[in-house]
């Protein structure tokens, strides 16, 4: 019996077209747009000005608080502008715009291919500082600054470091490919992270639809006694932090609390690779693997893209945007954001670009709720989406809070499964936003 989380979940079509496609590099863009807010928390403050020459890997915006992250230039060239540019939501955001000239990396980066597995010369504290310096954020999509996540609050201990290699989103294969190509580096990254949090054991959870990655990781992990690789039953949303902890350790993170409450810390597999590169290769986070995929794409693949590359360049690289494109999603189809333009840049949280043909891009027509209770049975958090939706419509926000609307992690299982195609999650999100507003006003 494979492990999984017990309550709820759905099985969307996997559609992993880019499986097994080697990670490619594409030509550098002529211009990059690097947003200063690519993470949760305070936006970074630009430290370059118009006209400055920057090198690849150079710090260009400094973290402006504890929950914030440094931002490094992903190319070498000239800063042409620091301006407000529309991001993927269309709202304006400060971006540093750099004209690319050559590709000159800062000297400290070790660009050799050799694997450096010496991890004894640094203390946990030093590693964490280095992670913070390198601007690493969670690469799964939530983009929470990694050094904050690796800080264990006083009085708590970490027993398990859980590595999230589930990749439960349909279409996306970037983590999968990373595990095939960079398994050794990932494991060293895991060990480094373990050193920071002082975990006794590292558990790597991989869904069973990636047998090659599981076997590859298992063979590589043999030399480490405290790393366990677990195959998990395929079920969405297994990649959600709380669900993954439940699946691997059978511990339930209490409502409203963080995983450290049950002595766990969760890291994404892409993040551990970034940690390896930052510590062992001195390379800050300025590029990441992005799956560019979709049913209508001629050559779906995985691309190592520099942060700030406009998304249309990635699409050009896989054969251009098909005529019948109806929707472009930044991230996976279950939790990603639909884009209204292809001019937006790749950021630290971009795990994939999914292109959906027009035929599948609109939602089915919605009917009355027939109270079939499917939303309840698929909700991994044990909530009642139909009830939350109704409360949100009639603005009963306090009652909604009592029904634990804030536990909702917006996995979308309810909307996915609803036979009446009711946009449950849209209304729940609205309700959550209003609850948060009320809570904030109560605090102040």
């Amino acid at each position: 019996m494979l492990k999984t989380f017990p309550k709820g979940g759905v099985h969307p079509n996997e559609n992993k077209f880019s499986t097994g496609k080697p990670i490619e590099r594409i030509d550098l863009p002529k211009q990059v747009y690097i947003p200063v807010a690519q993470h949760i928390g305070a936006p970074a403050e630009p430290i370059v000005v118009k006209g400055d020459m920057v090198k690849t890997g150079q710090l260009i915006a400094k973290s402006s608080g504890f929950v914030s992250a440094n931002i490094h230039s992903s190319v070498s060239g000239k800063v042409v502008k620091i301006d407000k540019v529309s991001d993927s939501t269309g709202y304006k955001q400060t971006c540093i715009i750099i004209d690319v000239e050559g590709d000159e990396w800062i000297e400290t980066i070790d660009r050799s291919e050799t694997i450096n597995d010496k991890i004894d010369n640094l203390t946990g504290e030093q590693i964490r500082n280095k992670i913070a310096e390198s601007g690493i954020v969670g690469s799964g999509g939530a983009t929470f600054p990694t050094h904050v996540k690796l800080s264990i609050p006083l009085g708590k201990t970490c027993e398990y470091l859980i590595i999230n290699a589930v990749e439960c989103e349909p279409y996306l294969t970037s983590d999968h490919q990373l595990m095939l190509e960079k398994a050794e580096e990932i494991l060293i990254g895991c060990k480094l992270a373990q050193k920071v949090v002082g975990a006794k054991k590292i558990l790597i959870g991989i869904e069973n639809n990636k047998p090659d990655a599981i076997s590859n990781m298992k063979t590589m992990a043999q030399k480490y006694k405290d790393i366990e690789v677990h195959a998990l039953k395929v079920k969405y949303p297994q990649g959600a932090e709380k669900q993954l902890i439940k699946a691997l350790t059978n511990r339930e993170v209490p409502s409203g609390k963080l995983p450290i409450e049950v002595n766990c810390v969760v890291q994404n597999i892409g993040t551990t690779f970034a940690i390896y590169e930052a510590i062992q290769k001195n390379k800050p986070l300025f590029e990441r693997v992005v799956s560019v995929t979709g049913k209508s794409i001629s050559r779906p693949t995985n691309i190592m893209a520099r942060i700030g590359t406009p998304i249309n360049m990635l699409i050009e690289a896989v054969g251009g945007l098909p005529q019948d494109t109806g929707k472009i999603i930044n991230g996976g189809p279950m939790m990603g954001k639909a884009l209204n333009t292809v001019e937006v840049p790749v950021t630290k949280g971009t795990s994939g670009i999914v292109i959906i043909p027009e035929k599948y891009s609109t939602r089915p027509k919605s009917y009355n709720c027939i109270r079939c209770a499917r939303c309840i049975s698929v909700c991994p958090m044990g909530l009642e989406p139909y009830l939350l939706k109704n409360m949100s419509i009639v603005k009963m926000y306090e009652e909604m809070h009592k029904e634990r609307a804030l536990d909702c992690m917006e996995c979308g299982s309810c909307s996915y499964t609803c036979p009446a195609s009711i946009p449950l999650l849209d209304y729940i999100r609205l309700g959550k936003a209003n609850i948060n507003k009320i809570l904030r006003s109560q605090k102040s």
Partner: protein
Amino acid sequence: MAINKLTVSMSPHDYGKNSVKKIMYGVVLAMVPALLVSVYFFGLDAIRVNLIAIASCLFFEWFFQKFFLKGNTTIADGSAIVTGMLLAFNVPSNLPWWIIVIGSLVAIGIAKMSFGGLGNNPFNPALVGRVFLLISFPVQMTTWPKVSVLNFTMTDAETGATPLALLKEGLNNGKSMTEIIDSIPTSYVDMFMGQMGGSLGEISALALIIGGLYMLFRKIITWHIPVAILGTVAIFTGILWGIDPTKYATPLFHIFTGGMLLGAIFMATDMVTSPMTHKGMIIYGIGIGVITVLIRVWGAYPEGMSFAILIMNAVVPLINNWTKPKRFGEIIKN
């Protein structure tokens, strides 16, 4: 580059293959075996009743939607067909057409559309229609034609009573159980196959169970409600039978006769009017089982399934309130 305007919506961007239509037509399909059995035993009358009920339900659905609710007509979603068929399954095959139309009007017009259409009705529409007819036209609703295999002439067939009615009548006349059972012409095998007096769709246990299994397979229903109802009835009547076999019928008799299986599999499991959580479904099923047996054994009517379901329908909002699903990461207060 892009020629089309892109569509923007909130996540998720992928959708499952469930749809209201699929569910409704799935239920219709699950009722086909019972329909075939009814045609086998009651002849063309069975088709006549079904067609009238479905057509009038569709008409009223369209009519009320168009002139009272002012929304898009939803007759294509199949829910009116389900209501029509269930109503037809719940009446004798020789019912005059105008009574069926009145039943449809009550079912769709009063029980469904006046609450706002599909999904908003607190009571099962078909059952409301049936109970309305049962109270308004008691003679027509309890005159059951005798079954006659493959009789396709539309002549007035002989009429007889259902086993449950015979049981009630016998007990009221002070007969002993063995006498009554002997007087009932149907054996358990007949009951299982459907050769007994009764409403159109309720006669064949086998066909209903096949339909139920199909719905389970298609995940249209879960096992909780039928099992809870049948289990409760079996246990309850089993205890009574154990106390005094001369006064009370066997559990098997109770399960195979009357609308027990039709109710447990098709009526009580109606999504709109049943509880949302599995725990709630079991409470609901137990309630239906207990009330049915109470009515059958001590009540004035020989059959209590429809009343039991309607009574429990009324309790569903309360059950939903009591039986919240277990929240993930809930901190249990000591």
